[in-house]
């Protein structure tokens, strides 16, 4: 796999330097009263590969994730995305710059059709500007181009037959697929997936895994939060493990599986054994 070749020679230690990171975070701290939920000294998210953010419950994964994409504000810290400053930047601006996220509890727009969910994600639409929106000829061609692209993406995720249905009618798994398709519609360079496999049946998990690796193969970078060790071992190129708000280990999946700190962090559930099976 050429993508992970880039990670050859990267040290397997917290805060490891990577050749061409897409996202670099420094000294990110988030406190809730006396509790420090996130305290990350240094993290580089590699470009063009799938990076898993793992850790036991309460490790601060989702909080850190929300901070990075602007949905929460840190007490301290700065980070850059594609070399440009990304802390203190509002989430919609980051999304336009190519950092597009999904949510742990899917946020499909229930009373809108599947197709409208997709079309919403197109950036810089002329028809979304207040006055031009009134005059259809100004945005008709742009809209039909978007529609074509949306239908292609829906076909790829096997949702094209449902294009005109309300998103509320989709099953939990289909919603996950729609959210991923919608994120792609926004043409991201970094896809941030918050527990993409949570609450999904095993068959669909396989299909979702395929979609995630496809993202990487198309040149996108992926950062995802996940619990399921099988999933992590199968698809990730790089694993970052958090515990108690800190990054305690980094490395290739194989390195992480045998890492004492990681096993320790999971409270000895798999103590002494291999880290396989769902760790929750």
């Amino acid at each position, binding site marked *: 796999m050429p993508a992970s070749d880039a990670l050859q020679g990267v040290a397997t230690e917290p805060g490891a330097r990577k050749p061409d990171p897409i996202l670099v975070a420094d000294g990110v701290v988030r406190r809730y009263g006396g509790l420090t939920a996130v305290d990350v000294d240094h993290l580089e998210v590699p470009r063009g590969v799938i990076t898993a953010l793992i850790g036991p419950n309460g490790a601060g994964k989702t909080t850190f994730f929300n901070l990075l*994409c602007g*949905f929460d504000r840190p007490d301290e810290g700065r980070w850059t995305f594609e070399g440009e400053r990304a802390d203190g930047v*509002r*989430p*919609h*601006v980051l*999304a*336009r710059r190519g950092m*597009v*996220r*999904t*949510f742990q509890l899917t*946020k*499909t*727009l*229930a*009373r*809108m059709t599947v197709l*409208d969910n997709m*079309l*919403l*994600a*197109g*950036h810089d*639409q*002329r*028809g*979304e*500007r*207040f006055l031009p*929106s*009134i*005059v*259809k000829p100004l*945005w008709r061609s742009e*809209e039909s181009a978007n529609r074509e692209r949306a239908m292609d993406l829906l076909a790829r995720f096997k949702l094209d037959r449902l294009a005109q249905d*309300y*998103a*509320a*009618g989709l099953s939990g798994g289909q919603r996950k697929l729609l959210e991923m398709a*919608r994120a792609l519609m*926004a043409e991201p360079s970094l896809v941030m997936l918050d527990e993409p496999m949570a609450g999904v049946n095993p068959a669909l998990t396989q299909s979702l895994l395929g979609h995630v690796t496809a993202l990487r193969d198309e040149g996108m970078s992926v950062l995802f939060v996940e619990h399921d060790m099988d999933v992590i071992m199968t698809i990730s190129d790089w694993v970052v493990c958090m515990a108690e708000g800190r990054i305690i280990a980094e490395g290739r999946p194989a390195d992480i599986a045998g890492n004492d700190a990681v096993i320790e962090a999971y409270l000895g559930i798999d103590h002494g054994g291999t880290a396989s099976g769902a760790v929750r």
Partner: protein
Amino acid sequence: MSWLSIFALALQTAIGFQGASFALAASGLNLQFGYTGLSNFGHVGFLLVGAYGMAIAADRGWSIWVGFALGIAAAVALGLLLGIPTLRLRGDYLAIVTIASAEILRLVANARPSEPLTGGSRGIGGLSGTLGFFDPNFIPAGNYGIGESFVFNSRQLWSMLFTWGLVVLVTILIWALVRSPWGRVLRSIREDEDAARALGKNVVVFKLQSFVLGGLIGALAGALIALEAGSVSPTRWVATLTFALYTVVILGGAGTVLGPVVGAVVYWFILDAVDGILKNLWFDISDTTSGAIRLAMMGIGLMLLMIFRPQGILGSKKEMIAGAR
């Protein structure tokens, strides 16, 4: 009075100025509440500034157009003033701020120190001459209609023509807006604004646009109410009016283009028919009692509507079920 004439009178109100002005005001609220999910509980405040803009301009001898401009400018200013600090927060903040500010506006208009401007508790009256709203009326004087009850005079027809004309223009504008990608963003904000944010939409700006435009349409309705009456009085702009407009929006179907129009007509028809029936019972009911009963009936009606047809007259059942999941 016969049943027929009760219903004829009710229909007269429904398709008359009352219905038209409510349709206009409710269209603004529908854009905010029905399409964008903004809980504006002080819509009456926008109507108030529109009406007072018109009345204050006329009081100083300025033309109708200055009156409209003043009302619209005041509504835009009010929309920005209320919207900018609250629309970045959770929806509840907007609800609280709008309901309070509408009350503040009414109390300020009603207060003694504002008398030189707003006429205080007496309001501003006798403006018909200065406004000259009926001057361009080309409809010859006389009564038009069918039978004895369903009759409009030429002045009524003129105000109906003007107001319904404006309703048509505003409805076309709203139709053009909500079918566009701009309208799609509004609906996405109503469904889940974090999702819209995650897809790169500047949610606050869209909410502000919808809020200000909806308020502006409300101010137009207020200005027309002042125009038609030739006067303005502070007692009219109470929170009950906002809730009546909510009833209209929900009755017609929130988030549908024609919902507010159908809602306004049906609302006034039912309200006036109930009124007519109450006044023609075999025993006498005082006006205040019948007014109270009328309101109570409207409340019961709204409850029944929410239970049996929550999507309103024009709303889609499928969409409503989708929202409930």
